[in-house]
């Protein structure tokens, strides 16, 4: 079986992701921005698939493209688009954004230049069919033993639980 993960697909997906990202920050109409963001998220899901991580790709589609973006649109639809697109931005966040993106660019460039020294030379050869299972053993550990990330995973889920409970409590009229 020949692999379908050819460079052509990588460049196509990367192009979609970057193009979508550019549209997100350049469109004045927020719904168009949200749609462009969905394109970016789906393209990134495709990139995960090319890295033989189908589970992460599936979760990316379910959680981000399917769940969070529908919520985004749900909120955005209540905004009066015509008025908000003519409004001028009143807070000055562009210096912060510029600094952050420059720092990120510097990080990427340094990783690209010094990549050979920083990362292991060997490619991970996880069989695609057991990817989901590998994630499970990493997170939950094998029979009786804790996995390397079990503690971090449980802490993160506790944090999410607290956030959910907080949201539920805040919807009540009297706290």
């Amino acid at each position, binding site marked *: 079986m020949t692999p379908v993960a050819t460079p052509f697909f990588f460049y196509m997906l990367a192009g979609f992701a970057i193009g979508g990202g550019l549209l997100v920050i350049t469109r004045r109409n927020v719904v*168009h921005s949200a749609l462009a963001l969905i394109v970016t998220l789906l393209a990134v899901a495709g990139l995960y698939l090319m890295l033989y991580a189908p*589970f992460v790709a599936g979760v990316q*589609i*379910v959680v981000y493209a*399917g769940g969070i973006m529908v919520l985004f649109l*749900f909120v955005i639809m*209540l905004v009066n688009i015509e008025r908000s697109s003519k409004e001028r931005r009143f807070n000055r966040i562009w210096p912060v954004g510029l600094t952050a993106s420059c720092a990120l660019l510097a990080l990427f460039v340094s990783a690209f230049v010094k990549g050979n020294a920083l990362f292991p030379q060997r490619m991970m050869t996880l069989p695609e069919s057991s990817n989901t299972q590998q994630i499970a053993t990493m997170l939950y550990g094998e029979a009786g033993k804790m996995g390397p990330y079990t503690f971090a995973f449980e802490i993160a889920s506790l944090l999410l639980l607290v956030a959910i409970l907080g949201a539920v409590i805040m919807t009540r009229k009297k706290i």
Partner: protein
Amino acid sequence: MSYLGSTLSPGVAGNQLWALIYVFIIFTGVSIAVMAMNWIERKALAHFQIRLGPMRVGPHGLLQPIADAIKLLLKEDIIPADADQFVFWVAPMIGLLAAFTVYTVIPFGPSQAVSDMNIGVLFMLGVSSLGALGVVVAGWASNSHYPLIGALRSSAQMISYEVAMGLTVVSAVLMTSMNEKGIGTLSMIGIVQEQQSQGVWFIFKFFPLGLIAFVVFAIAMIAETNRAPFDMAEAESELTAGYHTEYSGLRWSLFMLAEYAGMIAVSSIAVTLWLGGWLRPFPKLLSAPAWDVIFSLFPALTFFGLTAVAIVGAVRMPGYSVFRIQRIGLAGFAAVLGLIGMSLLVIAIVGLSPARRLMASFRESVGYVYWFVLKVAVFMYLFIWYRATWPRYRFDQLMKVGWKVLLPISLGVLVVTAIWALEGPVLWQWLRELV
């Protein structure tokens, strides 16, 4: 040609030509199924309400879906002046793409699927949740009140019911890990094979846990596809037509196609996860070869039954001269059905001898696809039945059912399934000693 008789789905075997052929077959089949569903729904709804339903176009209105399709294709395509042109144009396609992409992983048989992904269930849930985007975006792009409210309702509804749906799916996936290795699977084909090797459909596993999970899923999937009694997004008494009020002609028909294709898709998930997919009834209990032969006659018998119904219809047609063409048409339809039944019978009998390998593999495929489609067809009829029976929910009731009833039940079922799966025999022993 070398692919025929292989035991792998074309996607897994890496055979692009056959994958394309499968895609074409499934696309055609689903389109025909949607047309048939359209006719059956109007006919069944009419009979529920003691009406006749479509009777004019063709015998018993059989050609009505085709007439509707032609009408919709020829209708003027209106885009409202104040609508967001591009989004208005792209919205029906999002819905249709999401609805049809799901079919790549639906297993009509152990090798009768376009492909087998090892994240099959996750992929299906994810892509079908993208269908909500089409509805939401369509409602917003119309730039009109009714569609906007319909879209808001639809998005809220889909998000709420997706949670319960996902949790019940997890409890079914948990059941797939109840083998010697203790490793479950998310692949659609793997799930059915697991039910085969465990010798039980998951609806009956850990009774009544599987059944409860299945019922919760069956309720959530009606809400997910925006069907009555949860069709808040297109409640015609409040919102004219909801999110597709401003759509007409071909674009509107794309929405309808997406809705019905989505209904078939979620029914297939339910059939795959809980009702044994392509497995025939009682594969363990009635495992004698004679039973195999008897069950393989069912496809042919179904078509003979349909032929008999069509012949009765042709005989009972009124004798006036205006009905002559209708009678000839119905008799011709009966002949076509009978021919299909005859060829299925030939396949079922000739395929019995293992020497004819191609025929034998055809016979098996017919059996797999038949049982799968039959189970899905039961669900499609249930969709119509619900629509005829239950009044529409109010929106706050809908939210209450989703968050306060289905979500706790599905969470509880998940937890109890996990406990039972881990410590079932020990707990059972302990309970017996207690009593």
